[in-house]
């Protein structure tokens, strides 16, 4: 090759487009149980191999394998299963409500339910998540999931805890360790680090957990979060949910080609894991490992969760325009609910009948919550918070100029 031959711009492409089958070999998977589990105080450079491997516990037959097996009791696993089912059922019903124009907009987490559910169970009360719009499972995994209130938020009705100010799904639940969701991508990632630094400054014991999508890692706040977390050894878990897609752009456009998002962490001096995000046991084990490191002042951990965004980006999106329709069926990491169910059945702790019963029970629970929430109206039928509340909370008190404006609006 002549060194003076013309330069070319490389523009990455996904390995599948509508009408084709995606070639998922780009994912580089490891067999279940094959990846080592380092000491909590491992030197960061020594996690270099882990950021290209994939921590997995469940094999294709639903058996739990290897050093990352968290050895959870069937009872705990059943709680996790219920959380995932609740998330999926909730999403499905809210999608219908959106199509019925009861709610204005929705974002589902289909296929990604294991990540938030197992992570929520691995954290302690008082810890604080800084989620994106696709971590409803962090809330719905909980026994005390505030489902009616959540639906009121989605309906933007007169019981919406956010008073109609935010788009649906942009929940805020301080008391449940769930930070207010921002519409501006990535901003929460560095805030999680700041919260964790504050906890360390105060000699507290609570840790933070920040969330970001593969696409959003290109934003500045991903970098500032890694830098600050490393410099101050902040007690924070930095979660990158790599569901392969941003909106229409593939993870290679975010820099995933020939590299991994976990590698970003090691590059910044942060111990990092790449984990099967559709494997409830692996998610629990890795979350626990990272949480323990944080709590013992061993510093931050970055975890790349490998998963697949099975549904549309949002109700405004049509993924058949840019990717094969059957991708999720062909995605090699499968469905997290089916995988945990298979495992529970394999260990003799579960049955098809029990599963069906749980599914029905959860459906009834969600239907009841929706019914209750709908009593308070919706954006569509105009049962909103009053217009005057628009002027509240801009500042702690309402300053003169906002009083004048409120008067002008006549409210």
């Amino acid at each position, binding site marked *: 090759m002549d060194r003076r031959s013309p330069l*070319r*711009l490389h*523009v990455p492409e996904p390995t599948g*487009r509508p009408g084709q089958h995606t070639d998922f070999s780009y994912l580089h998977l490891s067999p279940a149980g094959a990846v080592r589990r380092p000491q909590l105080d491992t030197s960061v450079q020594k996690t270099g191999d882990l950021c290209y491997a994939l921590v997995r516990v469940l094999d294709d037959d639903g058996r739990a394998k290897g050093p990352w097996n968290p050895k959870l009791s069937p009872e705990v696993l059943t709680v996790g299963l219920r959380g995932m089912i609740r998330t999926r059922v909730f999403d499905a019903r809210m999608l219908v409500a959106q199509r019925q124009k009861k709610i*204005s*907009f929705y974002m589902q987490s289909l296929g990604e339910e294991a990540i938030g559910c197992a992570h929520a169970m691995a954290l302690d009360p008082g810890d604080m998540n800084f989620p994106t719009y696709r971590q409803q499972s962090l809330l719905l995994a909980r026994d005390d999931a505030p489902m009616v209130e959540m639906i009121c938020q989605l309906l*933007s009705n007169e019981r*919406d805890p956010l*008073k*109609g*100010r*935010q*788009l649906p799904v*942009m929940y805020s639940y301080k008391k449940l360790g769930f930070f207010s969701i*921002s*519409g*501006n*991508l*990535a901003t929460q990632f560095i805030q999680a680090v700041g919260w964790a630094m504050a906890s360390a400054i105060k000699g507290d014991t609570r840790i933070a957990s920040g969330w970001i999508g593969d*696409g*959003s890692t*290109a*934003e*500045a706040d991903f970098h500032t979060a890694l830098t600050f977390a490393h410099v101050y050894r902040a007690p924070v878990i930095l979660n990158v949910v790599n569901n392969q897609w*941003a*909106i*229409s*752009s593939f993870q290679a*456009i*975010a*820099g995933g080609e020939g590299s991994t998002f976990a590698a970003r962490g090691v590059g910044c001096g942060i111990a990092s894991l790449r984990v099967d995000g559709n494997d409830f046991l692996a998610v629990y084990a890795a979350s626990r490992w990272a949480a323990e490191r944080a709590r013992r002042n061993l510093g931050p951990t970055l975890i790349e969760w490998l998963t697949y965004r099975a549904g549309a980006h949002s109700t*405004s999106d049509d993924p058949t*325009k*840019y990717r094969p329709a059957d991708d999720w069926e062909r995605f090699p990491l499968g469905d997290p609910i089916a995988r945990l169910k298979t495992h529970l059945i394999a260990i003799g702790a579960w049955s098809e009948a029990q599963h069906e019963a749980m599914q029905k029970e959860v459906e009834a629970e969600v239907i009841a919550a929706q019914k209750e929430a709908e009593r308070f109206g919706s*954006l569509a039928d105009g049962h*909103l*918070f009053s*217009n005057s*509340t*628009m*002027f509240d909370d*801009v500042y702690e008190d309402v300053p003169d*100029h*906002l009083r004048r*404006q409120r008067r002008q*609006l006549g*409210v």
Partner: protein
Amino acid sequence: MAQMTMIQALRSAMDVMLDRNPEVVVFGEDVGYFGGVFRCTEGLQAKYGKTRVFDTPISEGGIVGVAVGMGAYGLRPVAEIQFADYFYPASDQLVSEAARLRHRSAGDFTCPITVRMPCGGGIYGGQTHSQSPEALFTHVCGLRTVLPSNPYDAKGLLISAIENDDPVIFLEPKRIYNGPFDGHHDKPVVPWSRHPLGEVPEGYFTVPLESAKIFRPGKDVTVISYGTMVWVAEAAANETGIDAEIIDLRSLWPLDLDAMVESVKKTGRCVIVHEATRTSGFGAELLSLVQEHCFYDLEAPIVRVTGWDTPYPHAQEWAYFPGPERLGEALKRAMEAC
């Protein structure tokens, strides 16, 4: 002459310029294969190839940063910020770099970039899909800010912006992408396909920067506005029966001062309208200019009609939006005062 929506008109402008000028490149989040979340670049990658129309990482700072570097090389990048609400990560590159490069290098390097961004509310987008940050750009010397109100102007202005050697912020009021919107959200919208300003030449033409347009001639009061709000102003004039002269600025900065001053000198009254929050909004500059240039002609206080100084709400959208009723009251106030 073809009938185009604003989206089609913008796409046509980029199409024409990609075709005429090999230095033009188009990029942004979801802009390439998919054609943009508002479909403004649909089909352009298929037509011009992946190295001239492409997707970028989700990094507004990076998008504008590479645009500045490409401009310094000699290209004419047309970059899309998916929503104006998301330009903030790019503000250092816009303010400290794009706007200053020519001046600080004494012309050694220039920055002929165009940064498109959909702005404004009225689509239930909530606080992060509804903002109108034009005032922030107009405060930055070295930037040009443009904001069209219809498909014809959108195409002609976008071509002018791409051909201009200064960095241009090109704001697109998304509420009128598909048809003019007069603020009556409970009534159906007329699509551009049935509107004269939806008639747009298929080929190359320009609408000059720094030239305002008398959107509706009148003699009672001057309404200075831009974007969606000129349609609301028209509705308010018709509904109140006040013969307002509506000026569509089109270029916000640098602007067509003469058009404003001439009209206010004639009517003696002035109402300024924008959707953005009020305080330090661009209306304040417009009011100041009118006050400075027409003080002795003013028969009544200049009135500003704007969004409130609150985040743009999701549910209470129409209480926030300065609609024809609020505007009509302002017109009456401007007429009654003396």
